């Protein structure tokens, strides 16, 4: 039975299913109750699961994470929403010093099955602090896992997989894709593991690696490139920590060229790790240096400028051209 759902709607359904299947699943966040979250991702859950399992909290992100840790210690499986990317820094200490390290600190005795849901990325014309891409901060933090769906089907399955995971998972939701639609069959089982990358479009000329919001952009670029006879292979990483390097390296071994695309600032963004790794793993195969397309080394600009700041089809294709220019 297949339904057409948006990404936001798919995550909502995934949350609902987790709430149904495991009574230990509880949701915490600001405005997730009656309002259903500012993006309506928790719409209807308060009504159906009650205010003990869908908890509107005081306006204090550090304590949201701290409380989630405490609930984990009590055997719960908390799913936390931080309303926007730019507000997660307030909770950074609880995330980095406590959530990420508790399992190791306890020598494996304690588990932190916390899912941190975080709408991220730009492109929605928002005011400051509502368009950030903080994924590298989390991926650099040992003890955390970081994943991000790019489409509704992944959104539905990955949120459930993240909640089921016994490690803390930062679940990054590409907010500008919340309204993207796809057909979802809830009756099947997850099409892929939570930490697997996927080739979402095969091609022989250049490997384009993306995740979250940029997957669609890269698919569009690939379609445009095809009209010029250039066949891009697009990889959706899905997981940023760990990285599924097998899929990436396998592709680059075939194409010999690679472009990594993300919204986050290039300097020490995910592209840095990917470029470093691909340059090493595919050292003798690379025909051009791995190129990176991403945000500039500036704070996210006022929204009137974001179309210039954010990678788009043209900037992806420009990098593809520069890659191909290497003989």
């Amino acid at each position, binding site marked *: 039975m297949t339904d057409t759902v948006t990404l936001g709607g798919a995550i909502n359904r995934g949350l609902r299913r987790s709430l149904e299947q495991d009574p230990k699943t509880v949701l915490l966040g600001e*405005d997730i109750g009656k*309002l259903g979250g500012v993006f309506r991702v928790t719409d209807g859950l308060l009504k159906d699961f009650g205010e003990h399992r869908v908890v509107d909290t005081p*306006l204090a992100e550090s304590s949201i994470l701290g409380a989630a840790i405490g609930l984990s210690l009590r055997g719960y499986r908390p799913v936390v929403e931080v309303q926007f990317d730019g507000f997660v*820094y307030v909770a950074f200490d609880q995330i980095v010093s406590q959530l990420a390290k508790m399992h190791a600190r306890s020598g494996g005795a304690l588990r932190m099955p916390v899912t941190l849901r975080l709408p991220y990325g730009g492109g929605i014309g928002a*005011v400051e602090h509502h368009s950030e891409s903080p994924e590298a901060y989390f991926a650099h933090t040992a003890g955390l896992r970081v994943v991000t769906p790019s489409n509704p089907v992944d959104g539905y399955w990955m949120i459930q997989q993240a909640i089921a995971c016994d490690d803390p998972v930062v679940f990054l939701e590409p907010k500008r894709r919340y309204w993207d639609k796809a057909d979802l069959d809830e009756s099947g089982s997850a099409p892929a593991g939570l930490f697997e990358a996927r080739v979402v479009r095969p091609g022989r000329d250049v490997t384009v690696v993306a995740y979250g919001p940029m997957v669609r952009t890269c698919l569009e670029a690939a379609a445009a490139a095809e009209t010029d006879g250039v066949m891009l292979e697009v990889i959706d990483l899905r997981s940023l920590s760990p990285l599924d390097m097998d899929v990436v390296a396998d592709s680059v071994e075939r194409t010999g060229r690679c472009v990594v695309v993300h919204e986050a600032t*290039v300097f020490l963004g995910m592209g840095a790790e990917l470029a470093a790794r691909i340059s090493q793993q595919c050292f003798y195969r690379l025909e051009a240096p791995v190129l990176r397309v991403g945000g*500039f*080394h500036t704070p996210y600009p*006022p929204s009137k400028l974001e179309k210039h700041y954010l990678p788009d089809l043209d900037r992806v294709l420009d990098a593809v051209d520069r890659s191909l220019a290497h003989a």
Partner: protein
Amino acid sequence: MTDAEPIPGAPPPITGEGTFVQLLTPEGERLHHPEYDLELSDDDYRSLFRDLVLVRRIDAEATALQRQGELGLWASLLGQEAAQVGAGRALRPADMAFPTYREHGVAWCRGIDPLTLLGLFRGTTNGGWRPDEHRFALYTIVIGDQCPQAVGYAMGIQLDGAEEAVMVFFGDGASSQGDVNESFIWASVFNAPVVFFCQNNQWAISEPLERQTRIPLYQRANGFGFPGIRVDGNDVLATLAVTTAMMQRAREGGGPSLIEAYTYRMGAHTTSDDPTRYRLGSDVEAWKLRDPIERLRSFLYKQQLVDAAFFAALDEEAEALAVHLRDGVRALPDPSTGSMFDHAYAEPHAQVDADRADFEAYLAGFAEEAR
């Protein structure tokens, strides 16, 4: 101002009347208060009324401009005009204010062209005015972050030995943030000249006050060793009186204080919000009876301080302001693409220079293609 101590285990109902300083009733009756009172001239009354009306007009216009697509977002101050104008008018030119994102009324009092505010919500800038010139910090969007900054600034005043003070604005929701509570501690420990002005508009987006506190917010100050006062935030006179007194106290070395302005967010949280999902229209209706402008209008009428000409002139002024905003907003230039790179750092930074060069080469490539 007396108030029952919180009863452990049994949260007292959170209400306004009887706990706050009021100098003007919703019916426009002028009250007097033993501690906080005001001597105002007729002109003062009229000018306060003018500010309230113009500030509301700015807000209405901005809301309309958002609907027309000229702004990406607007955070309406509807219902909070008196709290903001009262507090804003208590500031002296040399004092400093640290706002949230909703203090359009205070910005007005600090002499900031409201058009400048629209830039931020239109997305042409993340700031807009010169905080050093207007003594009005940039809007702060991350809830609570401005509070420790305000205390730091106030410590600077102390270092300078200046007779100035700081007013920092925040909401009922913000009162739950760690940074806000830390700033209470710092202000108290350093006896910093700062007035904490909390507009309790009863809502933090969809969350009612009960999600942030079980006792009236002004009592938070009891835990930190400085006075907490609740004022009728829909009463511009009371707000002006209390803020004036507390700012003067701070300037004179009396230290910090917390003022809770008891008010109501009449509109949506922002233009993106849908309050029908979480609150009753009847609550909003009840608060309409406490409208901050109407009560001053009644007072002015009763006192015969105004006539038809006054209102006509004010209407005209409001209309001109609206035209200024409507025309101005459309004329606001988009920032240049290069401006992204200009102000990432104050001094040259190799990475920014490289990014700028790459971007310019990229743009030049298009220009070439086009030729």
